[in-house]
């Protein structure tokens, strides 16, 4: 039921995203463009500019929503979000380095993913006792601290690169850091990553519910805690890496989307994980629609919109529930 509503809303925003822009196209015409093989200018705009962008935005948002929900469970911490363990820092440091040396756009993507992957391996190595060795015990604070310190290290490198970057590259770098869907040409890798993430973790949702009660309680209920923690860490990190590679470090989605859903519908991971994917995708797609239409023809980075809308919405939901 929740999924149906979110899914329909996402579909509606998807169609509107394809319709609106510098040239408005009626929804009916959008359907024709999607269905037909003709190649007039409207089809061109819809199919090769707006479609990849909307799909890429949806996939990135969905990945961030899931990654956030997963890390909040793994760390048992409501403040956890996809970037807290340094994945985005690694991606950003490498992507900015690629931009600094003005490499082509695809090598920026490759660099971003490489950086994210290195950061994942680094945390995996440093926190191996917490993640994949030893006994189930409640070790979340150490994993969180390890990741946070790594993230801080990447942050310093990023600042360093911004400080030495020539003026003409600075704008692109800041846009990347804020999260930007401009120039997404190949949404398929992110969509495939989204499908893999769903298949890899949604079947484990009942175990994740139990894991929230603590490692020892979960182990006593028959969950292989050490294995599950490693799986959650890898899936969440790779999802975040795929999202960041597609769209830069879009903020706020991974933190807020799972919380909004929790406040509205409860904390059952079986519902929450797919719902986070739908709502995260919906949010980024909608935010990008606003980002590229509100001061058209100029475009804002989508990350600005997600935070500008996300902050008041989240605060409202949080305070409404206060006694």
């Amino acid at each position, binding site marked *: 039921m929740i999924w149906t509503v979110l899914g329909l809303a996402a579909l509606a925003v998807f169609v509107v995203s394809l319709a609106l822009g510098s040239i408005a196209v009626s929804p009916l015409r959008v359907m024709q463009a999607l269905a037909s093989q003709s190649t007039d200018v409207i089809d061109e705009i819809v199919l090769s500019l707006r479609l990849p962008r909307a799909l890429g935005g949806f996939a990135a948002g969905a990945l961030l929503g899931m990654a956030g929900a997963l890390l*909040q469970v793994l760390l*048992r*911490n*409501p403040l956890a979000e996809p970037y807290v363990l340094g994945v985005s820092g690694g991606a950003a440091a490498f992507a900015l380095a690629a931009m600094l040396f003005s490499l082509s756009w695809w090598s920026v993507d490759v660099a971003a993913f490489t950086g994210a992957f290195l950061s994942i391996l680094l945390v995996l190595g440093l926190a191996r006792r917490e993640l994949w060795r030893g*006994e*189930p015990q*409640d070790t979340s604070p150490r994993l969180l601290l390890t990741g946070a310190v790594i993230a801080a290290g990447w942050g310093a490198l990023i600042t360093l690169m911004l400080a030495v970057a020539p003026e003409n590259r600075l704008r692109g770098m800041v846009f990347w850091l804020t999260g930007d869907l401009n120039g997404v040409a190949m949404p398929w890798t992110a969509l495939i990553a989204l499908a893999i993430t769903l298949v890899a973790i949604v*079947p484990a*949702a*009942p*175990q994740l*519910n*139990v894991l*929230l*009660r*603590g490692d*020892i*309680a979960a*182990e*006593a*209920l*028959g*969950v*292989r805690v050490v294995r599950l923690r490693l799986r959650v860490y890898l899936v969440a990190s790779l999802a975040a890496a795929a999202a960041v590679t597609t769209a830069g470090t879009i903020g706020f989605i991974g933190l807020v989307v799972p919380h909004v859903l*929790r406040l509205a519908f*409860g*904390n*059952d991971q*079986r519902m929450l994980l797919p719902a986070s994917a739908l709502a995260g995708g919906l949010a980024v797609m909608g935010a990008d629609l606003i980002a590229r239409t509100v001061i058209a023809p100029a475009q804002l980075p989508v990350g600005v919109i997600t935070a500008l809308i996300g902050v008041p919405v989240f605060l409202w939901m949080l305070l409404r529930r206060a006694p």
Partner: protein
Amino acid sequence: MNGLQVTDLTLRAGSRVLIADLTQTFAPGDMWCVAGPNGAGKTTLIAAMAGVSKTALNAISLDGKALSAWGASELARRRALMPQASHDAFSATVFDTVMLNRFPHLTGWGWESEADRAAAHAALDMLGLTEFASRDVLSLSGGERQRVALAATLCQDAPLLLLDEPLAHLDVHHQIDCLEALSGWVGSKQRSVIFSCHDLNLARRFATHALLLDGAGHAYAGLVRDVLTPERAGAAFGYPLTLIQQDGHEALVPVMRSTSPYISL
């Protein structure tokens, strides 16, 4: 052989030996109290008996089968563990929290059946928590949280309960209610409870057997009144105790300092 069997079990904390070569059978129908001073190894022993610490899996067997040979969910349907602390980072209703312990009984896609919901209601009823079902766990007091955790453990519907300090934070009324509920639960079928507890008098009243740890590797096991005696308990806790009796009630109380042999020495 039914029940929990511990054979030549040695538990350590770092280089310190907590329990040396313990061999003991915990038979169905018994209610065991594990007593001992702080740091004597009660939690370590209970975790080992539950099979969640991987150190002693082969020294402990359940129904004649070593813990290492049990499948994870099969074991979770046979024994339930209530850890000393549980986590509630996110809000959830008491009912949903209790029902999480139905995990080993879930089949298919992992959604609860009507039977699971009935078990959760029954467990809440048993501890007088019916009215708490829709409360948020984050709004509970320490004692209420403890009773919810106990209800969750009961809801798991395993014939052996391992409870780590189930009475902590409870007032005397609820301590007695919980122990009465547990005794009734044990008595009705061939089930057993092993719980750690600091209140020796409640243990003497409700437990059938006791295992007394002294933290130096020694353990005394047997009928509760043979083990939790003033002499043995006093020696294990390092403070002299005496048994006083009045109108058919008995209580172990600490000896007044002025008459303490430790002072006179």
